[in-house]
């Protein structure tokens, strides 16, 4: 199966700081991939690479077999319209009310009348479990969970082929975490959707993911070593009922460092 996205030996540096190192993995159509790892290991950066918000320093990111770096601005815009993005803080536009936030993409893309926009916005809000009265509220009046749901509605009203979720449940209480997890599942059930979920929550991984990629912090790797510590089915990683990382993953991490130390001593 041709992957929707492919990261090929991707390295990202900001100045002298390396954020991602030699990362390679595929994202297949209609799968739900969970991207996990410690804070600062480059998970959110990886998501931004997928929509061309950042460019890799080395390596390549491919969308349907084409390098994102080689796309014209117009082609990049088309790609972004096919891929929804739920930001960590929802990234709602402060100066617009909820209705205008959700309608923003529809208006920007053009070709949609006011009546249809109103209809799609109210359906979008209903899909994420928000009452119509919320439409007139400003983002500052919303709770964290509501903001995430409005952000999700804003992305989903555009009928994307893929959804990227950047820590969708961070900062939410367990009940709201379950609500967001359920919305991710519902979105996938309602349409053929490829999803990438960056998260720290193993409960979210357990509930929504079909495959898991685990990144290891670059600072603890040797030169040229890949940060991808685990790439496989979610069931294979989550064999522990309390949601802890299984011993074989930790064992691999220790082996890498031990090999490095041995090499350094040999040198």
């Amino acid at each position, binding site marked *: 199966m041709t992957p929707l996205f492919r990261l090929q030996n991707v390295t990202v540096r900001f100045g002298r700081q390396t954020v991602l190192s030699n990362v390679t993995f595929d994202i297949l159509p209609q799968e739900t991939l969970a991207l996990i790892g*410690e804070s600062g290991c480059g998970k959110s950066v990886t998501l931004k690479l997928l929509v061309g*918000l950042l460019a890799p320093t080395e390596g390549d990111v491919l969308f349907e077999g084409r390098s994102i770096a080689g796309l014209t601005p117009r082609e990049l*815009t088309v790609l*972004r319209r096919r*891929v929804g993005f739920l930001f960590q803080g929802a990234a*709602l*536009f402060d100066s617009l009310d909820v209705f205008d936030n959700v309608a923003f993409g529809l208006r*920007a893309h053009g070709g949609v009348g006011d009546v249809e926009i109103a209809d799609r916005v109210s359906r979008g809000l209903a899909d994420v479990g928000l009452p119509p009265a919320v439409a007139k509220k400003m983002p500052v009046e919303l709770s964290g969970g509501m903001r995430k749901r409005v952000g999700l509605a804003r992305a989903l009203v555009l009928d994307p082929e893929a959804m990227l979720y950047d820590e969708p449940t961070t900062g939410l209480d367990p009940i709201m975490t379950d609500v967001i997890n359920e919305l991710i599942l519902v979105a996938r059930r309602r349409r053929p959707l490829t999803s990438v979920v960056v998260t720290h929550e193993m409960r979210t991984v357990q509930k929504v993911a079909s495959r898991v990629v685990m990144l290891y912090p670059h600072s603890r790797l040797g030169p040229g070593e890949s940060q991808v510590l685990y790439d496989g089915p979610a069931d294979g990683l989550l064999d522990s009922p309390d949601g802890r990382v299984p011993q074989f993953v930790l064992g691999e991490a220790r082996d890498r460092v031990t090999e490095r130390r041995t090499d350094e001593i040999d040198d």
Partner: protein
Amino acid sequence: MPISAISLEPDPPEAEPGFLAKLQSSAADVADGFGDWAIFAFRAVTGLPTRQWKWNEYFRSAFDVGYSSVAVVAVTGLFIGMVLAVQTYTQFHAVGLDTSIGAIIHMSVVRELGPVLAAVMLAGRIGTAMAAQLGTMRVTEQIDALSCLGVDPVRFLVTPRVLACITAIPLLTILADLMGVVGSTFICLGVFRIDEYHYWRHTENFVKIFDVCVGLTKSILFGGALCLITCHRGFRSRAGAEGVGRAATEGFVISFVAIIFLDFLMAMLTNTVHGWLYSSIGPRLA
């Protein structure tokens, strides 16, 4: 063991770079920053003939830049005119050139002080606000969200602000000029009792339409520069409240230096042009 417990060895300490390495790095950063700004400015300005921005964003920015700044610019212009009159009177009165004071002050206000002071006031009042607003949008990922929704954030957010600045700031400069003339006239005619006929006669002989055009051209340049600089700082803001504050401060400082530098370039250029235009009719005070 939870994921956060994986900690096997500390990061190796980095060697401190030497003075030359730091200098080289700083020079490279400045060159990078200027190149980045040039691309940003090109993208914003070439967005003007496109429909990638909204008129309502322009009107909102023009209201902020123009209408909301009227009082502060008017008061500044008034007092600058008054201060110039007081300072100049002492010197000119001593050599019996009282009636020339109006010409000197009005020329200074129209060609230099009006455009420069209006631009500096607006760099402080509007420029920092734009840098902080866009910086906040950057750190809360609203700018990334615009990109993800298929909108060019530079053209959507910056282009209407540039248009607002280059249309509203010349109008504010005219106001500053007028208030400067009112302030100086009040002091010269009302307080120092300078002869009114000769005061205006010298002004009429000395201040030409060319000088007004120079002042307004400067104000358009200053408006465009301060907007593009402060917006660029906002777009490149670092994370957190400190990052946004720093972006606002940098925006003001860099735009202030740019205004003074552009003023110098314009002074050189316009003096040359003035020489070409008026060389055949002799010096102005002849």
